[in-house]
């Protein structure tokens, strides 16, 4: 019996020939990602336990992103403390304001992700980085502290689910629609504890950024990780970014999967997930009611990359946001911001009546930078629409692709983006 890509990466990182699902292992961790909200508690724990030595400072990447630029005094204190820790321990990979961004935007963009690595982050969307063929998973603050101190972390080797994605996407339909459709089919715990492995004609046709959107939302199906084998596109993306050595790992033809889904996307439509679960997806043609919008939000680790901004700008160019719908654009990283500016995308957004802010997780998690009032409705390119996720527990979040967000901002209500792409 062969092994999956996930099993092979984990086996290599615990010095075993093979590992099996269910097995408990203590794995070496190549990359440890820290952000503001979950890292400060880890620092407290490490101090309390006297575990102040970092096992491998080189493995640590620090990216404050949730409440930056600092939203209040307590948040400022948190980042100030992280800054002191970074300095005291001479951590080199630190992305402070000015070169900052949403952690899952920065990590691959700045060359910290490569195939075959083990990556953990104290953030649930760390599964994003599986798009480059790495094992990458979200953990909590205690796990983070343990990994910082020991360079290792315990895992139960997950079973894998295989998603064979066939066909090519029709115009106006994007990888966000694909992952919302998958989550709607299998449910928010449809992949609980499992590695979600994506492959097939669709994946081959997608850009690396579009693949990241798919892996990013593995957690919204309960997944431990999302993963896609590296191909020529991956290697081209890594060229000039990743400085170290790496090994491309692939699944054996006779690897065992706990389940296999064959999904043809050729006839897929834009999908919008209604409150209050990502699995409440509806095909755009099936939405009968008018959902009037107070806000349209484009950004986040799911869909705040340059391609997402280009897609939205194509629709917004020469058009105006609805007078009763505020649009907020949050490029995910500083470099994305710069690129968008060079390409004239920022002008297009501003001319359309949108506002463009500094990179931050911000309103995606109801932190700051675009919080919703009671009764307000928002279409968002983000990943969660839980109760109160973007502000008031009485507000509503609808999830869609960047194209759907842009089109809906213009119409002032949830709208099929294909209307503006003809």
């Amino acid at each position: 019996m062969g092994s999956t890509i996930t099993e092979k990466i984990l086996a290599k990182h615990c010095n075993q020939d093979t590992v099996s699902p269910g097995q408990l292992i203590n794995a070496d961790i190549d990359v440890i990602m820290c952000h503001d909200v979950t890292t400060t508690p880890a620092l407290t724990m490490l101090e309390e336990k006297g575990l102040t030595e970092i096992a491998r400072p080189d493995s640590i990447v620090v990216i404050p992103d949730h409440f930056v630029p600092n939203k209040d005094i307590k948040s400022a204190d948190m980042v100030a403390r992280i800054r002191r820790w970074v300095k005291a321990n001479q951590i080199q990979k630190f992305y402070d304001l000015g070169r900052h961004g949403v952690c899952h935007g920065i990590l691959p963009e700045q060359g910290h992700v490569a195939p075959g690595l083990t990556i953990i982050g104290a953030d649930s969307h760390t599964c994003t980085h599986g798009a480059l063929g790495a094992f990458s998973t979200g953990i909590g603050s205690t796990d983070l502290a343990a990994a910082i101190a020991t360079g290792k972390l315990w895992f139960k080797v997950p079973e894998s689910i295989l998603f064979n994605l066939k066909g090519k996407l029709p115009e106006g339909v994007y990888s966000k629609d694909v992952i919302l459709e998958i989550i709607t089919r299998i449910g928010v715990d449809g992949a609980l504890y499992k590695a979600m492995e994506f492959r097939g004609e669709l994946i081959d046709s997608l850009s690396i950024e579009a693949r990241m959107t798919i892996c990013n939302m593995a957690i919204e199906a309960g997944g431990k990780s999302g993963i896609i084998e590296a191909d020529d596109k991956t290697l081209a993306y890594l060229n000039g970014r990743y400085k170290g050595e790496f090994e491309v790992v692939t699944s054996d033809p006779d690897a065992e999967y706990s389940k296999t889904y064959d999904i043809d996307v050729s006839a897929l439509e834009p999908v919008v997930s209604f409150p209050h679960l990502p699995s409440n997806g509806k095909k755009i043609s099936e939405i009968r009611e008018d959902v009037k919008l107070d806000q349209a939000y484009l950004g986040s680790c799911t869909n705040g990359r340059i391609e997402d901004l280009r897609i939205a700008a194509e629709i917004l160019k020469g058009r105006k946001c609805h007078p009763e719908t505020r649009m907020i654009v949050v490029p995910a990283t500083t470099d994305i911001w710069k690129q968008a500016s060079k390409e004239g995308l920022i002008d297009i957004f501003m001319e359309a009546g949108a506002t463009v802010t500094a990179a931050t997780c911000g309103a995606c998690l109801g932190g700051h930078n675009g919080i919703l009032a009671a009764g307000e409705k928002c279409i968002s390119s983000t990943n969660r629409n839980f109760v109160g996720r973007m502000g008031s527990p009485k507000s509503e979040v609808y999830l869609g692709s960047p194209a759907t967000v842009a089109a809906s901002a213009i119409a002032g209500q949830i709208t099929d983006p294909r209307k503006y792409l003809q």
Partner: protein
Amino acid sequence: MCAKAHVYRRDHINTDEIIPARYLNDDTEAALAKHAMEDLDVNFIKTVAQGDFVIAGEDFGCGSSREHAVWALRGAGVKVVVADSFARIFYRNCLNNGFLAIECKGLSQKVDSGDEMEIDVTNSVLTNKTKGKEYRFIPLPQFALDIIEAGGLLDYVGKK
């Protein structure tokens, strides 16, 4: 002291509901405890007492990795969360804190809020003293018991 059940017959209770992000600029247990379960049930914090049980359906603790969810519940006095199943990161976080997360299918349908509860970890039995019923749960794996015994993951790895 009698431990009371707080029953939520719902699946997918997420960590945003357990502790909303607006309170994540403070990671002290006392500060977080004041807002435990706020976006799910504003009355929870008024009725919860030391040693109480939270009992819910499938996929408890899904969503954000914030360990603050465990600290908010523990700070509010909760001793055990029993659910049909747990989301992965929340479960790790419970274990790593030496906090009891117990899988027991269907318990939220059999227990009512206010019922007096007891847990016997060694024998994997939950007792509903109000209804005079016992329920067996999936025993915690030895690895989990070792971490709990050590007082949490950091003490466990510290000892090793």
